[in-house]
């Protein structure tokens, strides 16, 4: 197994382990990118209900906002799709420094 596979597996395993510990857990995944964006579709961020997180969806640009949204997903269980970047400034103040845009899905791990 390669290091990358270990890291990817770790994120899915981490989600499972945190659930086993009784913590609320959400999984955020990049589903689409436009222009220059730091992480490709499929990149994961795992968030626990105490705001601990692992992985990345943007290399650091929007993780804070994703974690905040993930806490709401953990609370109400409704999956969400969010857009970040220069193309949608009305919805989000958080832009990507690279000028790209990303769409992120956040789901609760039940």
């Amino acid at each position, binding site marked *: *197994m*390669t*290091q*990358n*596979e270990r890291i*990817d*597996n770790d994120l*899915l*395993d981490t*989600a*499972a382990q945190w*659930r086993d510990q009784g913590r609320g857990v959400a*999984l955020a*995944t990049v*589903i*689409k990118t436009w222009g220059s964006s730091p992480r*490709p*579709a*499929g990149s994961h961020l795992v968030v626990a209900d105490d705001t601990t997180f692992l992985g990345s969806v943007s290399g650091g640009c929007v993780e804070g906002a994703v974690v905040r949204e993930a806490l709401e997903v953990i609370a109400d269980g*409704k*999956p969400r*799709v969010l857009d970040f970047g220069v193309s949608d400034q009305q919805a989000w103040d958080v832009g990507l420094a690279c000028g790209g845009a990303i769409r992120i*899905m956040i*789901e*609760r*791990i*039940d």
Partner: protein
Amino acid sequence: MQRKLLDKLRQARAEGLPVALATRLGDGVQGLIFDHGSAGDLTLPPDRLAQVRTMLDEDRSGVLGEGEEEIFVRSYAPAAEIVVVGAVHISQYLLPMASMSGLAVRLIDPRRAFASPERFPGLEIVTAWPDEALAAQPPHRRSAVVTLTHDPKLDDPALEVALNSPAFYIGALGSRRTHAQRLERLTERGFGPEQLARIHGPAGLDLGSRSPAEIAVSVLAQIIAARHGKATR
């Protein structure tokens, strides 16, 4: 995601099976799609399933369809691999670097003095002859094959197997003169110019590399370029 589905996904990954997680974005209903068969609550029409399997085959993640039928596909394909022939000094750098870059690694060298655990801690080295080792586990479309021994007895048979495989990258270390002689030998073995053009020789991008670590970087950089369809020469 339902916990049951997450655990099935993790199990497939642990077994090295290609698997895609498909999510209908409108309502969050999910399913797993394997090369053969599927699991979960999401049912997809046959043509959509075929599209998902193509994405899985190409290790691509992304969105398919529109409106209520829009789905996100997350492909979890097994890693591409690098097969290195020759447990030489460069390999001691190339293999860890390749592993960090996400490649699965295989090292082949029948010479036990080279293929010692002291030189490659934690790595299982195949000590069969390269052509036998490669025949046992043939290179596939996600394989890069690199020969580093400088010894025609070891390098040439490996290159022959690689040339007869769909490996996405073939590289052979050695000076231009050595490589010219290698091409002559392989021509005598019946390989044509088009086939032989697949071999990157001398292996590696021209970075002016001198040390074993620098040469490893240049070879790995060339493999990454080949993997992503960029110019490698």
